[in-house]
């Protein structure tokens, strides 16, 4: 039985349809990331799971129990808000223990559980402070502690790291992941940052315009995106797309609009010719070789661990990434060849994966 099950969730605000028929099963202990561009409905979906918004239609089951219209407090979930939402007039200890106090636990119990939750988060010495006396990272940890103390069936995170600076974000990412491994609680994590999703999640659900574009493990999404949107969304720098046509007569060929022929890997048999998008990730180019496409270097970006080179390739702006240091100058010419086993083909009209 899945820990959380969503069936045909629909939600509209007035005439705007935010969620169209979302169905999803989440297993016990899974870390699910909901990603997508802004406006895709991921935050709305999270709030519906939490009970802060009501779905227009559809069912939500938590551990087999139907919670469609239950009050948030009856759902056995805890949420970490984007802006922390700590109670300003309460101390850290009171913030952490608030839910326990409402549930009627004895003060001694509350105090013990608060200390237990605060210790691994490094909050033990801050229990008497007020939120305004804490730094951003500390407030974030209090928000997490507040959720942990309740020992709920599921954690809901609503873009918790988007207000932190880059360095803190990286550190908190690791901490949240470690927390998940330690507690094993089912977690639903909303973010617009696909790097966060890739590094933290067991499975990623990509949303766009209220529809699930693809759901799967990070590597599955990375290696076999099911449509052009997911292909371009996951992975940084993003996948390159070349517009062209697929020619099927005897041996299949891909011809870009400017006439360049590019290599293809094995193709499924039932394919028509037609307009396609040729997708190749930046790290899947090889330099040199007789058959390489002649490309003009535009910009060279050394990041230290990689070299990103923006080139003009088959009349497209393309980025190639290499582990090695490449000695190239803007204006020079390089021969680049996409590695055929890593080519992704998508129908130009529907965006669906072809190979």
């Amino acid at each position, binding site marked *: 039985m899945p820990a959380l099950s969503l069936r045909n969730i629909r939600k509209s605000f007035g005439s705007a349809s935010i969620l169209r028929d979302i169905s999803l099963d989440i297993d016990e202990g899974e870390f699910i990331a909901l990603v997508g561009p802004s406006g895709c409905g991921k935050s709305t979906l999270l709030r519906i799971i939490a009970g802060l918004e009501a779905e227009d239609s559809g069912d939500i089951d938590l551990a087999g129990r139907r919670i469609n219209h239950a*009050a948030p407090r009856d759902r056995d979930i805890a949420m970490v808000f984007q802006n922390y939402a700590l109670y300003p007039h309460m101390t850290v200890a009171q913030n952490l223990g608030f839910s326990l106090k409402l549930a009627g636990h004895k003060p001694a119990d509350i105090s013990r559980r608060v200390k237990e939750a605060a210790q691994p988060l490094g909050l033990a010495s801050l229990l008497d402070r007020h939120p305004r006396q804490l730094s951003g990272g500390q407030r974030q940890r209090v928000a997490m502690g507040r959720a942990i103390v309740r020992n709920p069936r599921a954690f809901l995170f609503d873009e918790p790291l988007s207000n932190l600076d880059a360095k803190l974000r990286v550190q908190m990412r690791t901490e949240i992941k470690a927390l998940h491994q330690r507690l094993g609680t089912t977690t639903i994590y909303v973010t617009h940052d696909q790097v966060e999703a890739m590094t933290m999640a067991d499975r990623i659900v990509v949303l766009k315009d209220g529809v699930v574009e693809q759901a799967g493990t990070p590597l599955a999404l990375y290696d076999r995106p099911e449509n052009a949107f997911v292909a371009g969304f996951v992975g940084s720098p993003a996948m390159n797309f070349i517009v062209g046509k697929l020619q099927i007569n005897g041996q299949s060929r891909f011809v870009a609009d400017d006439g360049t022929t590019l290599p293809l890997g094995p193709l499924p048999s039932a394919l028509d010719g037609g307009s396609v998008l040729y997708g190749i990730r930046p790290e899947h180019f090889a330099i040199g070789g007789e058959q390489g496409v002649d490309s003009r270097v535009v910009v060279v970006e050394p990041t230290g661990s990689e070299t990103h080179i923006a080139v003009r390739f088959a009349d497209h702006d393309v980025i190639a990434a290499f582990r090695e240091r490449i000695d190239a100058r803007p204006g020079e010419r390089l021969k680049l060849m996409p590695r055929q086993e890593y080519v992704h083909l998508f129908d130009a009209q529907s965006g669906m994966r072809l190979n």
Partner: protein
Amino acid sequence: MTILPWEASRKRAFIIGLAPALLVLGAITLLPTLALIVVSFTPLSLTDPINTFHFNNPLGNYRQLWADTRFLNSVSVQLKLSLSSVALQLVVGLGVALLLNARQAILSAVRAVFLIPMVLPPIVVALIWKIMYTPEVSPLHRMLENVGLPVESLITNPDMALWAISFAETWQWFPFTMLMVLAALQMMPDDPLEAARIDGANRWQIFKYIVFPYIRPALVIAGLFRLIDSFKAFPLIYVLTNGGPGTVTEVTNFYGFIQAFNFSYWGYASAIAVLMLAGAFLLSWLISRWGGHHDDE
């Protein structure tokens, strides 16, 4: 599991919170208004309540008002007083706000002290100015006398009485416009000012082309609020002139008061009150359209 869906039970909780206030408010505002309108259709007089409570001539009071010179006079007095007083309040409030809109700490203390005339009980304001306007005890009159410019009592002078009241009212209420203008001035962004200074504008030009357009909405709202409030002016007139000399300072509110509680012509007074209420309603509607606090988001 709750019985009602969370959304619905939440809405119900809000209705329970709102209902008592609405009921009370309805009982003490809508019912009396209804009664007022009903009575205004009768010639009710407390001297003979039973026989005068009939609806034979529902619009009789209103027709009589239309021809009542004393009523029409009261309307004109009201307009003169309200418009002059509000205009003065706006000008003085604006001037003081501009003067005090600076960072020196001592100015913030001055701003605080200037709140006093506005918060004083109106009866005390009336007393203060009764003293100021009574030659026997007024230091102002005495000072003028000592300088050789003796002035007679303003409030017994038919030509000056209304101005005396207007002045006293301005003294009382200019802090209100001052506060509204100050709030607007403090929210004004610095960039256009600096740009104008760099462009070479002098202080008057800066005021006329940049500051004034920005604070004009605040002035309009303040003016509307003060206008409505000015219709309620009572203690000043009651204590200073009692509507006199003659009916020179008899504003509509005062005339209604006399009709109701001196002459006991309640039907007639109700008609006057209904007209005043209509005016207040109209002005409130204007305020809500031109920038009340709570626009529906």
